[in-house]
């Protein structure tokens, strides 16, 4: 569509040649033109800020995704502690980006730019809650997430980058609050990761984690059904995927229970790889 738009614009520029001359009559310093010049400035400032936020949001998304991949290696690696530390460092980097977002939003209505930052924040919530789950086997709360998103000036370097304007106004702290809806969507995505974790932990011969996960996922699923359609449309849309993830985990637990005693442990992984393939195929056409 971008190309189409460009072509269309180029096209309608031609017949204007004639009108251009007539345009000269318009007084460039009239009240109307002056106010439109200020509109131009206002709109450009707004769009620029929006673009900067979109870029930050993309970076946050990418880094969060990488953190999640890293955390998936946690169960298989013998050096679990090391991976957790590494993920913490990565998340700190993400939080520095979020700090920049918070700085951009000083004095602004957060919801005006919410669409720009929301995807990144959701991904961050997914990553941070995944890490929290691995560490504590429980669900991180919104309050806990928001607590980590209060920033203060740490190093001189960043102070120098700041515009003098915001420097004077703020008491050197910035904070960002994730909205309840972003939190819910992030948690819904988390369940997909937990499902993957479940399947891969079986592959590692870990028999306890799947049961733990199925219990945890069921709690989250119950929570989402409790919310039902009170929330916005996106939340109810995720409910369907969540149900599928839960079904996969529950089936895994079922298989483990029924056949776990018959099959030697080293063959369990094979049983699951065929099992999950089957489920994936069923999903295929949808």
């Amino acid at each position, binding site marked *: 569509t971008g190309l189409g738009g460009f072509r269309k614009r180029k096209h309608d520029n031609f017949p204007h040649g004639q009108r251009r001359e007539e345009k000269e009559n*318009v007084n460039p310093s009239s009240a109307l033109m002056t106010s*439109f*010049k200020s509109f131009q400035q206002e*709109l450009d400032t707004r769009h620029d800020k929006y673009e900067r936020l979109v870029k930050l949001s993309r970076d946050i998304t990418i880094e969060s995704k990488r953190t999640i991949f890293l955390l998936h290696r946690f169960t298989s690696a013998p050096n679990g502690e090391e991976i957790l530390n590494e993920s913490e460092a990565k998340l700190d980097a993400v939080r520095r980006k979020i700090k920049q977002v918070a700085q951009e939003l000083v004095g602004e209505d957060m919801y*005006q730019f*919410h669409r720009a930052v929301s995807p990144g924040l959701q991904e961050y919530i997914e990553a941070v809650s995944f890490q929290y789950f691995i560490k504590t086997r429980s669900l991180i709360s919104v309050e806990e997430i928001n607590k980590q998103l209060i920033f203060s000036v740490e190093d001189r370097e960043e102070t120098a980058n700041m515009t003098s304007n915001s420097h004077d106004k703020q008491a050197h702290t910035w904070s960002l609050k994730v909205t*309840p809806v972003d939190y819910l969507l992030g948690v819904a995505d988390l369940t997909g990761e937990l499902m993957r974790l479940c399947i891969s932990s079986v592959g590692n011969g870990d028999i306890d984690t799947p049961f733990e996960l199925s219990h945890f996922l069921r709690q989250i699923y119950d929570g*989402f059904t409790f919310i039902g359609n009170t929330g916005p449309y996106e939340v109810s849309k995720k409910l369907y995927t969540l149900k599928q993830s839960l079904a996969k985990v529950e089936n895994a637990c079922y298989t483990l229970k029924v056949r776990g005693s018959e099959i030697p442990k080293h063959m369990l992984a094979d049983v699951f790889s065929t099992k999950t393939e089957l489920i994936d195929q069923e999903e295929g056409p949808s």
Partner: protein
Amino acid sequence: MSVSDMFIALQGVLTADQDIREEIRKVVQALEQTAREILTLLQGVHQGPGFQDIPKKCQKAREHFGTVRTQMESLKTKFPSDQYYRFHEHWRFVLQRLVFLAAFVVYLESETLVTREAVAEILGIEADRERGFHLDIEDYLSGVLTLASELARLAVNSVTAGDYCRPLRISAFINELDSGFRLLNLKNDSLRKRYDGLKYDVKKIEEVVYDLSIRGLAKEAEK
């Protein structure tokens, strides 16, 4: 905090949110009703006899804007004032419509483009975000673009009614407006789409002016 406690808390937040939206919707419905009444009133100018009592119609419309101001006042109380953009979508459409109506009244009275500050005053809201419930710049511009298509229609109808002078004045006005919009770097959003329609309004009015001038009607009118 257990998982279910967390979700109970979230559900509470979401329900509260829904209540706010419900309240806003009610007021917006009332605003839409008033906007329709004003529009019906102003539609009169397109008919023959309507041209004679434009000032009277504007006077009446201005009285209706009093109702708009009280309704706006009640809208402001329905949500926390720092969350304007959270609920923006609910009143965006009606606000654009009201901007158009206010701009139309001001145009009919003085043949000038209403400023953003003046519209805000007519509607009983603020022009700046800092000072509370305000008029978003994109909504203002959208309303102004609606005015352009209405004026294209008015140009045609004023010829029918025998007023050959008005289309020329409308033409000058629209041309200036067009140059104004050319200054803006619009993103590929709804405002841009509406702006793309402006050239058809400009074209329509130019055709009317052309028809008048080849028949010598424009000169006749000037005498």
